[in-house]
């Protein structure tokens, strides 16, 4: 099975696991299996339209899937997939942002325009 490496900030959603064995023959299938195993990861990876979020970078070997065939990039058995996060926080809240952001948070990160 391919192995997906989980970065520290997302390990909160994989029971602390740094690597997850996933099944599938391409990135799309692998991510589907990953989010079945760990549903809480889903909003961190996909937007409401089901597309990968722009800040989510997946690498197969040394190459970004954006430079390969995107989510159709084929994966071989035992191949390592790395999920590379944006890190650097420094976040505070301002009252005026409360309502706009609440939808976002409740949806687990998906933009909801209700």
């Amino acid at each position, binding site marked *: 099975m391919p192995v997906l490496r989980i970065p520290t900030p997302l390990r909160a959603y994989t029971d602390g696991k740094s690597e997850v064995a996933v099944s599938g023959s391409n990135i799309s299938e692998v991510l589907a299996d990953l989010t079945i195993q760990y549903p809480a990861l889903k909003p961190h990876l996909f937007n409401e339209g089901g597309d990968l979020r722009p800040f989510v970078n997946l690498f197969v070997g040394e190459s970004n899937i954006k430079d390969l065939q995107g989510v159709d990039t084929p994966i071989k058995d035992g191949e390592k997939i790395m999920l590379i996060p944006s890190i650097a*926080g*420094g976040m505070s809240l301002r009252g005026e942002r409360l309502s706009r952001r609440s939808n976002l948070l409740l949806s687990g990160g998906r933009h909801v325009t209700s």
Partner: protein
Amino acid sequence: MSLPELSREEILRYSRHLLIPEVGLEGQRKLKNSSVLIIGTGGLGSPVSLYLAAAGVGRIGLVDYDVVDSSNLQRQVIHGTSTVGKLKVESARVKLLDLNPDIQVDVYNEPYTSENALRIAKDYDIILDGTDNFPTRYLTNDVAVFLGKPNVYASIYRFDGQVSVFYAKEGPCYRCLFPEPPPPGLVPSCAEGGVLGVLPGTIGTLQATEALKVLLGIGEPLIGKLLLYNALDMSFDFVKLKKNPNCRVCGPHADIKELIDYEEFCGVPSHDHSEEGSAGANWDITAPELAERVKTNHLKLLDVREPHELEISALPDAKNIPLGQLAARLSELNTADEMVVFCKGGTRSARALELLTSAGFKKVKNLKGGINAWAREIDKSLPIY
């Protein structure tokens, strides 16, 4: 351009550099002639500025507007107990000039913003990104792209570090990899999530190494490559980065031609380092107000910190649901209850409040400044962390 000569004292000082053929006398004169701007004088800025000063980089610019706090000293080794309460840039300048009086240290005790960034950065050869927040990180990238300068990048979180050299003239920029920041709230900061004290040391010295390679024109700088480090696994992984043809700042069809409002772009303020997390005046309750309220009213207390933080300090009768679990455990709470939510400093609890209000909780308040404010103002037996 002719390079400056080295004095007899400088030749002695840099003798270990002069012995390396890749540096040598000419390389050392190059370093003396060069300048670097370091954004942030914190965890990364500490080792970066110390080693670049020691290496003899002729002019070092430091941008920071914060003051030294004792909670910085676990990792910000350029500062010391004697400089707690002093300006970080001043504390750092004294240390750097003690280490190497032959260099020039220029300090900018101001937030790095779209208004001043181009003016500050234009006269430096390279820019080092030692920031702790996304707005300043995107600003630092865009400034480097617009000025055509290399941006030596590093970032850290808990046990993880990343290093690269973003140089749009020769390779990708930060935005090629991360076109936009994650939505606010998805990625915790070091102030909330913590960082192993030695991590910025490891990553910052790698960053300084890359800066020296770029200045000297030796080796293979991490242009088009990203280093991923994990201290627990002691793993160093490299991935290749390519220029993104759709990059909005360095791509062929770039539509961002000047600096933008980065706080708006990232949805978070960059220059709010106060530990006093707030949810806005209508949603906050101060520690003294809460102390009054609990005397007369039965209030529920909800602690959204991680379980290991409860060992440091806790309030009696508070229910603990870590922020990350809150959405899944809302059924354990009653919308009819008056509830005060708190965390360490008020930031996570403010985020919890957003979630709760969206879920129909109307009678909720955020303890402004968190349990640390309570420890400071009400129960002085509790430690502040």
